[in-house]
């Protein structure tokens, strides 16, 4: 039986619309594009392991001859020399990234649930505004946002990074799209008949069902917060985050090129790991992202 179906499946997979010339073109451009995308990243990694002698080599070489951890120790030493302890920057970054991500997942999912599963005229209007506002990312509204944050007295607080990051409508849109298509109303009705209150319904039934959606939202939010320098809002050195501190280390030009690359490499690790761990959830969620 299986011996019979297998070749037929294969035949189906090989579609009539695929020609050799077309495949060749696809491979050619894919190769070219892969090189363009990968080389700078590879170069970052290589540079991070270059000893000072090779950084000043003329002509510069792409590859490293004698890989060393020198840049990472320099980075650690410079970080240790700052008058604000390194742990403080690390704490600021980790605190902002995790609290902001968890908070946004919660409030965005709650709102998305209401928008997807309750019906009223003002919810419909609110949903339209939410979709419309995806257009305006925080770079675009930064200056008026600054006026509001400073008039609320939030300059130099964690809130100045956290609250704007939790105010974007992208997350609400993403979770709502997922909810509309993957949580059937009949299931919610059944739970209500069984006596579940709305809060229980949301936390016990809906949140586990839409895990891919909020996990994806978490990845994007974490990525944004982790890379957020907050330079416009934070002037107090002890409130600054890791990327700002590390960039100060790397900012001394070619002499610190190695340390700069080491910094970039270290900062890259958390978002990359989180993405790789959850990429199947991300793609599942993104397949619901279309705007009707």
């Amino acid at each position, binding site marked *: 039986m299986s011996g019979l179906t297998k070749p037929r499946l294969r035949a189906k997979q090989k579609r009539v619309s695929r020609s050799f010339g077309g495949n060749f073109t696809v491979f050619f451009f894919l190769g070219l594009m892969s090189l363009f995308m990968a080389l700078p990243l590879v170069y970052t990694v290589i540079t991070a392991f270059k000893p000072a002698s090779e950084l000043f080599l003329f002509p510069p070489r792409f590859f490293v001859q004698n890989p060393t951890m020198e840049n990472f120790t320099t980075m650690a030493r410079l970080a240790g020399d700052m008058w604000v302890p390194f742990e403080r920057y690390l704490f600021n970054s980790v605190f902002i990234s995790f609290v902001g991500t968890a908070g946004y997942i919660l409030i965005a999912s709650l709102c998305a649930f209401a928008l997807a599963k309750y019906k009223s005229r003002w919810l419909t209007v609110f949903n339209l505004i939410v979709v419309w506002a995806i257009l305006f990312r925080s770079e675009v509204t930064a200056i*008026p946002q600054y006026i509001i944050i400073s008039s609320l007295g939030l300059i130099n607080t964690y809130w100045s990074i956290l609250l704007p990051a939790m105010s974007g409508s992208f997350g609400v849109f993403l979770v709502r799209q997922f909810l509309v298509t993957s949580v059937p109303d009949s299931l919610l009705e059944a739970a209500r008949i069984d006596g579940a209150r709305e809060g229980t319904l949301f936390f016990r039934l809906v949140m586990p069902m839409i895990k891919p959606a909020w996990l994806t939202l978490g990845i994007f939010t974490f990525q944004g917060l982790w890379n957020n320098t907050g330079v416009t809002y934070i002037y107090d050195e002890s409130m600054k985050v890791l*990327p700002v501190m590390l960039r100060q280390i790397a900012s001394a030009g070619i002499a610190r090129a190695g340390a*700069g690359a080491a910094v970039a490499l270290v900062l*890259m690790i958390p978002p*990359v790991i989180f993405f790789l761990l959850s990429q199947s959830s991300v793609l599942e969620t993104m397949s619901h992202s279309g705007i009707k």
Partner: protein
Amino acid sequence: MRSTSLSRPRGSLLERLNGREHRLTSVLFTLPFAVLFFTFTLLPILASVVLSFTYFNMLQTPVFIGLDNYIRLLLEDDIFLTALRNTFVFALLTGPLSYLLSFVFAWFINDFRRGVRTALTFLFYAPSLAGNVYFIWTYIFSDDAFGLLNSTLLRLGLIRDSVQWLSDPRYSMGVVIVVILWLSMSVGFLSFVAGLQSMDKSLYEAGAVDGIKNRFQELWYITLPQMVPQLLFGAVMQISASFAVGYEAMSLTGFPSTDYATHTIILHILDFGTIRFEMGYASAIAVVLFFLMLLFWNMVRGGLRRFGEEEGA
């Protein structure tokens, strides 16, 4: 609406019983986000419209000056015109190119088996994922002979002196465009990859029976019309990204760049907002930017929807 005809009597009774509670819950559930959304996303947009008609320096109360900011912006501010031109380069040339590349490569990798597809998706998305890593391009395009590009060209004898890639206004814009293209495979790209994966495969078989001959016909007549929702989402993300280009240019070519060669509207707002503290004027620039974004998005949305209706019918 919500219940099927069979369960309607039961549903409507429950709805009546729960109606009050539902209304209250829907308010409670939306409230936390609604407050933040209003304060930090909507209010900034509305506030800049109001402030754009004033002179405001953050210290004194705003003074109403009518259309003065706009008149100054359009008639007297030459640097704004440079910023406008560069923003249009990103919005009308680089943006559509990024969008096209995102779709074309999502389409290319769609035929691969799972493992390869995942690896390629990760590779293409990695630059956006890695955040601030784009500064590595300053080592490649470095103005001195230690830059990777300069040293290569020197060794090959193509140039005799190192080229000021980052500070010569003739080249700096090109460099920023390359880096922006490098960063272009972002959320929209992921949406395309995912959308292509969830396409109904039987449509392709039906298409083959109906006489689809090559992959371009398949793309045009089957895939694209089905992908309109994802294409719209990708368009929103692309427009919002293209009009927000500025910080990348700033960290590559400095602020302000030589002859304002890579100056964009975002950087112009930043200049007046954070350095000169002319908030009224900065708001007027922001309002022009918002208006351009809305105009552009409405045009693109209209076009894509019409395509969906014509080809999808």
